[in-house]
């Protein structure tokens, strides 16, 4: 009997150990008893810079050795595949009127060299990546230390509200310094959003500097889905596309889609649209987390769950390209990537922002208190890094490499607009062209058209990459930010999410109950039987 007890304890211990690992490892990878799933789940991967260097072209100049003062180590954590790693072929050169742009070295390496040249200090970047905002947060909770991270807006709002973030220095906003590329080049439209939105009474812009942004929408296959059908979040519940549409496995994205669909009538009504306070009301409407709304969202999502192909983690892009699904909820940056991939196979997909409303999101740089620790040299290097990736040519490199849209409009530097022309502009002799106005992004004014910022593009581009990367003025007006959920909301919404994703026991058919009953009786019987046998065998 005792021996048995020990065995049970050992088995318990083994499982306990696995559970510990699942506690230690960040994010949603429950290694508890799955063991093999480690490589599938997103994890942090520290990429030493030396490794990034190997991918750059041979013959590049490397700074070596310290000759002035101490070296600075900058720990940066960014999204996976969210920065140019260099190594472009010569035919990938972006030949703009203001000069060629090509990514030879990785962005990190270029930064280290640039910093050394500009400030005469060696900086060493430790670059690591994260898979989801929640992963990042859990990593920070468990004690990982970074100086500079790039989470989405709701996560930096959460971190700012928890007082974990160092405000940007005054010098960072000094537009007279030619090396302050961020302040000189950030899009006035986005700058305003960052100044107008506050957390604890302080504007985002005091703490966060934007890196990339985008909107959510539907990527669809125009051969199977009409643009009209794709222009509503209800496509996810449309029985015509049963098991042919996917949505992200993300609470926030699903919540947004559900709220927008549920309030569709209100959001698309002319009286709501023409309200002078439209933007403000829209933001209130889509950020509705009242218990009643959460309940409605649960019902909506439960219905949707039976209709969608899957809640995809990372397979949506590939499934769209291979034609397994007809439409896919997507972030605009990934949508660009998906459309590019499909085009490589001569297969054209399109992107649309649903009529009701769309979620505008931002990934921004913030400096963490625990990493910087009040060290001015380090903070200076971190801010210099933000500025370096905001330099128009570097912003273009990153955009070209990852497909997302940079925060940078260039200010006086014409290269960003030149890049748009280079990328999307129609050939002079092409016929089906339209004028596409992006002046809101460059001037900050979404009411007036600035003829300097009107592109002439092939008509279909407005429905493809260009429309996703730089939404039209009309589309951008229908976007709203999504607030972060506080603890209470987070708990309520997560409970809703669990309810949506779990199997409701009330759906269990009668024979299922019979099997359970038989199983329970069998278990108890087995116990009794064993006990009896043992008794018999005892002398």
């Amino acid at each position, binding site marked *: 009997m005792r021996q048995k007890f020990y065995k049970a304890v050992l088995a318990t211990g083994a499982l306990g150990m696995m559970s510990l690992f699942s506690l230690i490892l960040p994010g949603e990878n429950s290694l508890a008893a799955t063991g093999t799933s480690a490589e599938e789940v997103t994890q942090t991967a520290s990429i030493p810079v030396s490794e990034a260097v190997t991918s750059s072209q041979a013959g590049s100049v490397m700074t070596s050795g310290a000759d002035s003062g101490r070296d600075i180590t900058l720990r940066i954590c960014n999204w996976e595949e969210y920065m140019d790693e260099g190594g472009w072929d010569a035919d990938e050169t972006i030949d703009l009127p203001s000069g060629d742009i090509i990514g030879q070295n990785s962005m990190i390496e270029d930064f280290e060299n640039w910093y050394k040249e500009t400030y005469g200090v060696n900086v060493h970047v430790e670059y690591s990546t994260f898979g989801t905002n929640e992963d990042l947060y859990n990593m920070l909770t468990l004690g990982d230390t970074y100086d500079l991270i790039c989470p989405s807006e709701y996560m930096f709002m959460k971190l700012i509200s928890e007082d974990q973030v160092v405000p940007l220095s005054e010098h960072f906003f000094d537009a007279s310094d030619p090396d302050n590329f961020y302040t000189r080049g950030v899009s006035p439209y986005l700058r305003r959003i960052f100044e107008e939105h506050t957390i604890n009474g302080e504007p985002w812009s005091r703490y966060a500097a934007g890196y990339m942004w985008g909107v959510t929408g539907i990527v669809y296959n125009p051969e199977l889905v009409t643009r009209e059908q794709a222009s509503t979040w209800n496509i996810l519940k449309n029985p015509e596309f049963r*098991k042919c549409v996917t949505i992200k496995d993300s609470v926030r994205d699903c919540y947004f889609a559900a709220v927008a669909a549920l309030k569709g009538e209100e959001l698309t009504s002319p009286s709501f649209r023409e309200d002078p306070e439209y933007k403000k009301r829209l933001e209130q409407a889509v950020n509705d987390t009242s218990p009643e709304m959460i309940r409605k969202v649960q019902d909506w999502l439960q219905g949707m769950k039976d209709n969608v192909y899957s809640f995809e983690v990372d397979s949506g892009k590939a499934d769209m390209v291979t034609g397994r699904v007809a439409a896919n909820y997507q972030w605009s940056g990934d949508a660009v990537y998906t459309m590019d991939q499909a085009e490589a196979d001569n297969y054209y997909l399109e992107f649309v922002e649903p009529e009701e409303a769309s979620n505008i999101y931002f990934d921004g740089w913030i400096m963490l208190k625990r990493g910087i620790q009040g060290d001015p040299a380090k903070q200076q290097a971190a801010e210099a890094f933000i500025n370096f990736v905001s330099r128009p040519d570097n912003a273009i490199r990153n955009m070209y490499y990852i497909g997302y849209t940079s925060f940078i409009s260039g200010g006086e530097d014409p290269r960003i607009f030149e890049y748009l022309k280079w990328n999307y502009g129609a050939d002079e002799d092409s016929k089906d062209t339209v004028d596409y106005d992006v002046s809101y992004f460059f001037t900050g004014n979404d009411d007036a058209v600035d003829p300097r910022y009107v592109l002439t593009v092939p008509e279909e581009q407005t429905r493809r990459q260009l429309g996703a990367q730089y939404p039209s003025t009309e589309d951008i007006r229908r976007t709203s930010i999504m607030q972060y959920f506080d603890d209470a909301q987070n708990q309520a919404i997560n409970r809703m999410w669990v309810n949506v994703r779990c199997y409701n026991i009330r759906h269990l058919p009668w024979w299922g109950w019979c099997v359970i009953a038989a199983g329970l009786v069998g278990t108890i019987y087995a116990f009794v039987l064993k006990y009896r046998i043992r008794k018999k065998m005892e002398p």
Partner: protein
Amino acid sequence: MRFSRKNLGIPYAVFLLLFVLMPLAVLFYYAFTNGSGQFTLMNFIGFFTNPNTLGTLVYSFAVAFVTTVVCVLLAYPLAYILASSKIRAKSAVVMLFVLPMWINFSLRITALKEVLIFIEGNLAMYPFTNTVIGMTYDFLPFMILPIYTSISRLDHSLLEAAQDLGANEREAFFKVTLPLSMPGVMSGVSMVFLPAMTNYVVLDMLYNSTYIMGSLIGSYFAAYYWHGGSMIALILLLIICIFTLLTDSDETGDVRGGTIL
């Protein structure tokens, strides 16, 4: 200090303390507290009163149960044939079945996915079936090996004795081989059942949108709710405890060689 054999045990004691007992304590702490660190049973009450989470327990149980049954049905005849055949390179054949374990798991499932899509068309139409197929594919070697080991270690003279005493082959199989190979089956079952309840990556990759227990843990952690995740882990722990008590035999486990895996 004089060296004694007891000193050899110190590393294990440290290991046990660090990686078994302490994590268990942490697990218990989280499972029985709420966000502000107070003792609560609400995590468990919440789980057992919500038809959705309870349904997930039933659902993962069903997935695991069907997977285990299919695994046993596939593995036993195979192990039996292999063990009792006269093939000379037997271990090589066994190796062939174990080989997939050495290939990266996500690669295997991706390949399986393509095959299933080729057969079924739209995978999302048969989520449960696909999950069982995926799990079976993934865990089958864990079932084959222990059964094979226990059958091949069987004392052959017992079978001869049975036949001498007038049992035909069928009777000999059911009265001798099967009971004596049960420990192998049991250790196979214990290695398949619980992972099949929690390995949600297979689900995700094969487009099953319904959570199993493992996905629940992940979901709680993604919402920074460690208490919920620990609670689920503890429930799983309870299940494996019951299971161990049930399958564990008092006869000393020399035939349980299969557990070497």
